[in-house]
C-alpha cells in the first residue's frame, strides 16, 4: 500500500466515522428543555425536562413524587408528577433531568427516567454554612434514649 493510498484510506475512514458520530449524536440525543421552553409543549409527546427542583415543592403522594422544576436562572417553573425510581441524590435545589409528557397543566414523568447530578460534584466551595443560625440549637435538641 503506497503512502498516498494509506493517507486517503485514513482520511476517508476518519471522515466517515466523524459523520456517523455527528449523525448519531443528533439522532441519539434528546433536547433537554428548561421550563420556560415548555410553554408550547404538545400533549402526548416526550420531552426531556431539565432544571432545578424548586425548594418547598417536593411532596409525596402514595407512590408518586410531586415537585416543581424551574429554569437554572430562576423564573419559570412547571409542575411534575413522577412515579418511579427516585435517585438518592434527588433534593430540593438540585439539578434534575426527567423525561415528561404534558397532561393538562401537569407534566407526567416517565417511570424511572429521573436523573440527578451526583452530590459530590460541582461543589465550588462557595456555600455559606450557618446562614440560618439554627434557632433550635439551644442544646434542647439533645435526646436521651428511653425517655
Amino acid at each position, binding site marked *: 500500500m503506497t503512502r498516498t493510498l494509506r493517507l486517503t484510506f485514513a482520511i476517508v475512514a476518519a471522515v466517515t*466515522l466523524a459523520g456517523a*458520530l455527528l449523525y*448519531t*449524536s*443528533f*439522532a*441519539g*440525543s*434528546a*433536547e*433537554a*428543555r428548561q421550563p420556560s*421552553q415548555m410553554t408550547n409543549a404538545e400533549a402526548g409527546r416526550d420531552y*426531556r425536562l431539565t432544571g432545578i427542583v424548586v425548594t418547598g415543592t417536593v*411532596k*409525596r*403522594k*402514595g*407512590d408518586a*413524587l410531586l415537585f416543581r422544576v424551574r429554569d*437554572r*436562572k430562576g423564573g419559570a417553573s412547571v409542575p411534575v408528577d413522577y412515579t*418511579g*425510581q*427516585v*435517585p*438518592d*441524590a434527588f*433534593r430540593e435545589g438540585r*439539578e434534575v433531568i426527567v423525561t415528561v409528557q404534558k397532561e393538562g397543566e401537569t407534566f407526567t414523568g416517565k*417511570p*424511572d427516567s429521573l436523573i440527578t*447530578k*451526583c*452530590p*459530590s*460534584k*460541582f*461543589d*465550588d*466551595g*462557595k*456555600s*455559606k*454554612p*450557618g446562614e*440560618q*443560625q*439554627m*434557632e*433550635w*440549637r*439551644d442544646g*434542647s*435538641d*439533645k*435526646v*436521651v*434514649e428511653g*425517655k
Partner: protein
Amino acid sequence: MDLLGRGLLVLALIVAVYGAVASLIGARRLKVAADGGPDATAFGALGGHGSAWVRSGRRAIYLVAVMTTVTFVLVEIIFIRTDLRFDVVASHSSTTTPLGYRMAAPWSSQEGSLLLWVWLLSLWSSLVVRLAGRRMADVVPWAQAVLLGLAAFFLFLSVFYSSPFRLSDTVPLEGEGLSPLLQYPSMMIHPPMLYSGYTLFAVPFAFAVGALAAGHVGSDWIRHTRRYALGAWLLLGIGIVLGSRWSYAELGWGGYWGWDAVENASLMPWIIGTAFIHSVMIQEKRGMLRTWNVSLILATGILCILGTFIVRSGIISSIHAFGSSTVGWQFLTLLAVMTGGSIALVTWRRGMLRSEHRIDSLLSREAIFLAGNVVLVLLVLVILWGTFFPLLTDVLTGEQRPWASSTWGWWVGPLALALVGLMGLGPLAAWRKTTRAQAWRQMRGPLAVGVLVLVAGTLLGGGGRVDVALALLFGGFVIGAVLQELQRGVRARRISTGEAFPIALPRLIGRNRRRYGGYLVHAGFAVLVLAVAASSAFKDTHRVHAKVGQEMKVGGYTLRYEGAIGDYRLKDQRIQKLIIGAKVGVFRGGKRVETIRPTREFFPSQNPADGPVGRFFNGEAATEVALDAGLTRDLWVAMQPDGDALVDVYSALDKKLKGTTAPFARGAELALGFVRLYAQRPAPVTFQVIVSPLVSWIWLGTLVMAFGALLAMWPAPDLQARRVRAKQKARIARDLGLAREQAS
C-alpha cells in the same frame, strides 16, 4: 492553625515556583555545557547529581512535599476536631459525622481535593527524583520543572481561590455534615485512588516533556517511568471501579455505570494510559511509534487535568455553572498551556521521533497492538465527544442534548468488543511477521475455547443477543489465548529444566512477570466485559408497591414483605439518623433462601423551617440497598416508604408542638417515638427489585486485573544481573557484527 496553614501554603507555592525556575536554569546550563558551550564548567560541577541549580530544584520538590504533608495533616486535624470556624469543615462535616468519615471529608470539598492533588503529586515527585539518582541527568531537570510547575498551579489555586483555611464570617453551631451518600466505605478511598492515578500519570508526562525538551527521545524515559505509568493505571482503575461499586450499592438506582461526565472524566485518561502501556512495548522492542507514544502520554497527562477540570468546574452540568466556578478559567488556562506546549514540543522534535523500523506485516504483533491502540483512541474520542456534546449544543443552540444511554451503547459496545478480540490476537502473533498457517495454528485452540464458552453461555440462558454472543466468544478466546500461552511456556520450561508442573508454572511467571502479569490483566478484562454484557442484557427490574404480608415474584424468586423496621442512631445524645426499612423474606421453590433488610436512612436537616419533627425527614436521605450477591446472579432490593404517610404523621406532630416550650427537644423525642411506632404499624412501601446475572464477575474480573498489574509492576529478583548479562550479550553481538563487516 489558620495562619500556620495559610503560611505553609504560601511558602510551598514560593518554593515550588523557585524550584521550577531553578530546574529550568539548571536544565538550560546542562544543555549548554553538554553542547560544549561557554558554560561548560557547569557540566563539570555536575558531581553526578546535576548542577547546583538542578540539585536546588530537587530539594525544592522535597520541601514542597514536606510542607504539603504538614498542611494536609493540619486539614485533617481541623476535620477530626470538627473546628467549625473553618468554612470547609462547616460545609462538609458536623459533630455527628462519624470519625472515619470526618477524616475522609476533606476530599469531598473542592479545597480538600485540590490540596490532596498537590500533596500526592509532591510525594510521587519526590519519589521519582530520588530514585532517578544519576540516571537521565539531561531529562530529569526538565521533568522536575514540569512537576513543580503543576504543583505550583494547584498551590496557587489553594492560596488564592480555594483555601481550606478560610474562616467563616459567623461560626455556626453545627456543620452541614458530609453528604450521607458519601458515607460509604469505598467512598473514603475512591477519591485518593483517582487522584493517585492522576498524579502518578504526571510523572511519565513530565519525563516525556523532559525527553522532548532535552532531545533525548529514545526509550530511556519509557523504561524509567514504566512502573509509574503502570501504577497510575492500576490506581486510577481501582478508583474507577470503587466509584462504580459505590454507585451500584449505594446510590439506589441499581446501575454501576451511567456515562455521567464525572465518570467519563476518569475513564478517558485510563483508556489512553492503557494504549500507552501497550504501545511503548513496540518502541522498546522495535524502536517504532515514538511520536505516537509521546503523544499518548502527553494526552494522558492533559486528560488527567481535564478530568479534574470537569469535576471541579461543573462545565458539563451547565455552561453557566462554569461562569460561577471559582477555578474554571484557571484550569482552562492550564489545559491550553499543556496542549499548546505538547503540540509545539512534538512538532519541534518530529525529526528525532522518526521510527527506526516500519510495520512489516498486518499479521504481526506490532500491527495488532497498533490496531488495539487505534480502537482505544477512538473510544476516548467517542467518550470525549459524547461528554462534551451537550455543552456544544448548549453553546450553539442554547439547548443541551445529552446522549441517550442507547447511543453510548451503540458506540462503546462494538469498540469494546473489537478491543477484546484484538486482546486475544495480540499475544498469539509473533513480532515482525506471522504466516497465515502459523496464525491459524496459534488461534485454533483459543478459538475452540471461545466457541465452547459461547455454547455454554447460550445453554445457560445467555442466548438471543448478538452483543452478548460476541462477548462470550471473544471473552472465551482471550482466556483461551492466555491459557495456551501459559501451557506453552510451562511445557518449554519443563523440557529445558525437567521441573515438575507445580514448580515450572510459578517459576515461569516469576521470571516473566511483565508478560504473564499482562496476560492476567487480559483475562480479567475479558471476564469483566463478559459480565458487563450479560448483566446489562439480562437485567430483570421490577417496581412493586406492597403492604406487609404481600408477595412479589421476580427472576425466579418470591419476595415476601414480612415486617417493618423503625430504628435510629444517636451520637453524643443527638440524632445522627432515623432508619425506616423492611424485612423481606426471599424464597425459591417454596423454601426460604434468606431474609434481607433494605432500609432508607433519614439525616436531620439544619433548617428550622422544616419543623421540630419534620426536619428529621426533610434532610438528606440515603438508600441502604439489600444486596444478595452471588456468583451467578445478584438480587438487589431497595425500598422507599410512602411519602404521604410520613408527611401526614410528622406534619400532625409539628402542628401539635406549635407554641409549646422547647419544641425542638420534644420534636427529637417525638421523631424517635415515631420510628418506633412505624415498626409496629407500618405504611405501604415501594420496592425496587433487580435480578441481574454475573455482576459479581465485574468485581472479580477487576481483582484479577489488579493482581495482574501488580505482578507486571513487581521487579524480578534477578533483574539487575539479567540487565548486565543482556548488555554484555549486546556488546558481544555488536563486536561480532563489526568484525564480520571488517572481514567482508
